[in-house]
């Protein structure tokens, strides 16, 4: 192989003149985590809402929920990012569009919204499956006791659902972190983008990507171990540690 390895490259100054390459990668990891964290909050909120709608006893709610999931699941994430970044500012009224385009860190906000809504469709599916996996008697008993339908969901069904769903939600969180890399296409300087920039400036392709890969693996391990601790805390007694298989990435 005629490739010149140079692992010392990480301690050299990057073209921004302030940070070393290692520091730029770490900054990128920070943006990755921030983006994924904010997006996951959106995903969890909307996903729960839509998941609940899809199990509600109203046909309009079920139809709306199904349509929502189909739309966000059947368009690639990259195309959705482009829609939010390039198309949305043109479609809204002119003054809002201009405000959107001039927003500082526009790519960050766009990435959070696009990624959050994309992941919310997947979480909605998990929440729906989780609610449907509960014994029918729980809903019937709550209603028979005089709880209203919202109370049934908030106090009985959802607390159980979240405890059961923790393992699949962990893998959706990991997916959110991984999918945040797509935001480099709209100019977000997250970890993969930093590795790419480092490769372009220093020509040390494999060092840059190795470092990024290792950082992603470490993030994965930390999240997995942390969630395992939480899981042990909230596991529902009497249930097997059941893990529904999740397709996709």
């Amino acid at each position: 192989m005629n490739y010149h390895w140079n692992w010392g490259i990480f301690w050299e100054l990057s073209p921004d003149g302030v940070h070393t390459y290692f520091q730029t990668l770490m900054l990128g990891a920070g943006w990755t985590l921030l983006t994924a964290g904010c997006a996951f909050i959106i995903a969890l909120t909307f996903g729960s809402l839509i998941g609940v709608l899809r199990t509600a006893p109203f046909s309009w709610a079920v139809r709306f929920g199904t349509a929502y999931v189909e739309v966000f699941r059947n368009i690639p994430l990259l195309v959705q990012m482009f829609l939010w970044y390039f198309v949305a500012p043109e479609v809204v009224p002119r003054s809002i569009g201009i405000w959107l385009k001039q927003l500082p860190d526009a790519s960050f906000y766009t990435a959070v919204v696009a990624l959050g809504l994309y992941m919310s469709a997947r979480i909605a599916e998990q929440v729906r499956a989780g609610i449907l996996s509960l014994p029918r008697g729980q809903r019937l008993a709550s209603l028979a006791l005089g709880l209203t339908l919202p109370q049934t969901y908030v106090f009985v069904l959802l607390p159980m659902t979240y405890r059961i769903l923790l393992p699949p939600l962990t893998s959706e969180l990991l997916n959110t972190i991984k999918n945040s890399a797509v935001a480099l296409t709209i100019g977000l300087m997250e970890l993969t983008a930093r590795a790419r920039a480092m490769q372009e400036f220093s020509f040390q392709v494999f060092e840059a990507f190795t470092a990024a890969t290792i950082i992603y693996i470490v993030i994965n391990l930390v999240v997995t171990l942390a969630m395992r601790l939480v899981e042990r805390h909230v596991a529902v007694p009497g249930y097997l540690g059941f893990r529904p298989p999740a397709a996709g990435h």
Partner: protein
Amino acid sequence: MFSNFDYDVIVRSLPYLFYTGMTFTLLLTALATIIGILIGTLLALMRLSGVPFLTVPAAAYVNLMRSVPFVLMIFWFYFLVPYIGQWVTFSAQPIKVGAFASCLVTFTLFEAAFFCEIMRAGIQSIPRGQVAAGQALGMTYSTVTGYIVLPQAFRNMVPVLLTQTIVLFQDTSLVYVISVTDFLGAASKVAERDGRLVEMYTFAACVYFVVSFAASRAVQLVHRRIAIIR
């Protein structure tokens, strides 16, 4: 919004979008699925073999692929494939690899990890008694695997494999990051040349939606048809 929506730019670029772009996307999806399932099945058999020097590398490979973003892997392979080619063909220089071949290697090797997990679940869903019965009849490992386990595992997992293919179809849009002209790449090239981002990206989104939605409905039909009644 639709007052200055230019439908004409879409009509004019249709041949380019579908003939150049969609052909690339569909060919990549089909080939990556077929080869990916083959390699994935091999990886699954390795993971389930119980032989440490097969189990450990297969598990490590699958877990590595599953813990890094696909975009990063596309960059990795984009730079790595010429060196792999050099190593395989014993040439003195990193060999030049075309865009399609490079993408195909990337998608095949990446998706193999996901197909592996699906096939592993499929193989594990076969009752142990069937393998034991096969062995009691004097069949070898390869006969039991080839004639009893894999056909049933495959049949059980067809809906999941097809769903993963739809995911793969959507993932092919990510080759945008290495400036390859797939369907989205073609749309984005026209969009930037004519300054018609709104039209082209909206149209691309509609096409992806229609294809994926129709495909997932078809998968549901297939599922109903081939499900084994127990």
